[in-house]
């Protein structure tokens, strides 16, 4: 009869298999990455914060501009006098059409102030006439250009962010891989446990660059399209304004 015995071994790999929380994991990755990579990550963070600030600002601005434009068009087409429209402009100032209207309205008023009442028999007595409709057209055109510039303000920063942040991240990755290969050479081992952490740290920069670039690309295209739509609306409104001015003041 032989003696019976049994041994149960439970291997527990030190370090690697120990349960590690995700919190410690991310902090360790950020801490172990080199100084250059940390600087790259800081730059990318600043770009991301700035681009998201612009995104939020432009989204809020363009949305308000769209809402106010709809209401302004309703007011404009419902009113029988420019003075009534002018009174409503204060509450609809986010609309670019308000700027176009105010510019044209100011030009008409200026011409009325400089021009004496008409003495022509064909014109009813007391009715003011425009001296130059082309001047009104130019005023509308200038205002439309100014409004487009205002709408497009800082949108170009999104294009800049979308263009350069992937390259900044790539630079950080290349630098991190250089450092990782140096470590591999110093260690003299090609074990995956030694190679993988360095590459993982290096790839954080690329991920951060893409994280900043992807929303910037999307919202740049979205905002550009929206601004083009507003430009078309302003051109249409300017023509409508000119028609009304020509019909009533010439």
């Amino acid at each position, binding site marked *: 009869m032989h*003696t019976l015995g049994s041994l*149960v071994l439970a291997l527990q790999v*030190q370090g690697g298999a120990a349960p590690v929380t995700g919190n410690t994991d991310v902090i360790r990755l950020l801490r172990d990455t080199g100084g250059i990579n940390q600087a790259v990550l800081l730059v990318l963070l600043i770009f991301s914060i700035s681009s998201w600030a612009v995104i939020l600002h432009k989204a809020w601005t363009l949305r308000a501009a769209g809402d106010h434009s709809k209401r302004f068009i309703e007011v404009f087409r419902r009113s029988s006098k420019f003075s009534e429209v002018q009174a409503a402009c204060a509450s609809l100032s986010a609309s670019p059409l308000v700027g176009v209207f105010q510019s044209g309205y100011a030009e008409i008023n200026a011409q009325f102030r400089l021009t004496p009442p008409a003495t022509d028999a064909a014109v009813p007595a007391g009715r003011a006439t425009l001296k130059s409709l082309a001047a009104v057209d130019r005023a509308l055109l200038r205002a439309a250009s100014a409004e487009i510039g205002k709408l497009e303000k800082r949108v170009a920063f999104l294009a800049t962010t979308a263009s350069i942040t992937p390259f900044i991240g790539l630079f950080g990755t290349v630098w991190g891989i250089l450092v990782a290969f140096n470590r591999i050479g110093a260690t003299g081992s090609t074990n995956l446990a030694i190679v993988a952490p360095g590459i993982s740290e290096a790839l954080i920069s690329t991920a951060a660059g893409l994280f900043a670039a992807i929303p910037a690309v999307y919202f740049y295209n979205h905002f550009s399209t929206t601004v083009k739509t507003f430009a078309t609306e302003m051109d249409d409104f300017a023509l409508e304004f000119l028609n009304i001015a020509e019909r009533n003041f010439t």
Partner: protein
Amino acid sequence: MNEAATQAILARAGAPSGLNLTIAWSVAAHVGLVLFFLYMPDSWRGRVDEPPRTVMTISLGGAPGPRAGGMTQIGGRTVQAPVPDQPVRRVDAPPAATPPAMTLPRADARSRPRTQPRPERAVPNATGQTLTTGAEPQEGPSRVDTRARGQGFGLTTGGGGGTGVQLDVGNFCCPEYLEQMTALIQRNWTSQHGVAGTTTMKFTITRGGAIEQVAVELPSGFVALDLAAQRALLLTRLPELPTPFPNPSLTIHMKFEYSR
């Protein structure tokens, strides 16, 4: 000189943009995002919570019963190398015998008998076999050397031979090291102490092979059994950890089972 339309354009251009507020919102959003990444559950980032532990069951001796020959596995037998080509040996043919000279037949020569001699007994297998009435041959208990050497891991004995080793190895890189470790510890340990019990020990093997941090993880209830297991570990000298194993140390939980 200032134009009326210019005044209107400039008045609208000077309106506050509100960008500072969105910068504050953006900073807050990024801080929240970083905190989210730091504290989100591990399962959300696709992490496997804990790798499956490698558990090995080692049975020394096996169940009591008739000796059936012990280990019978042949998986460990080395593959024979192909036999190298043997050089062809050329044998020189001996010189042909000289043919006898031609002679004339003799007239008084005796002729050979034409008939074959009759056989004195029947040739074997020419007649039916006589049935035997003795005991039938049976397999004996003697062990036959099959020239097969077991690898010690991965297979189990058939029928609980009593001398075999039953091992069930997981995905640890170097089962040979565990086999060697078990054998070395077993040299310094005996399972017979008069009482039955189980002691679970925990210890750490350093890269150099030293056994450190020996501790009783689950006592058996008998101090003598715990001390015997501890003594077996402290007396054992192990070789260095295998090179394919990348970690600096190896922690093992070992259960010593004692019988009467």
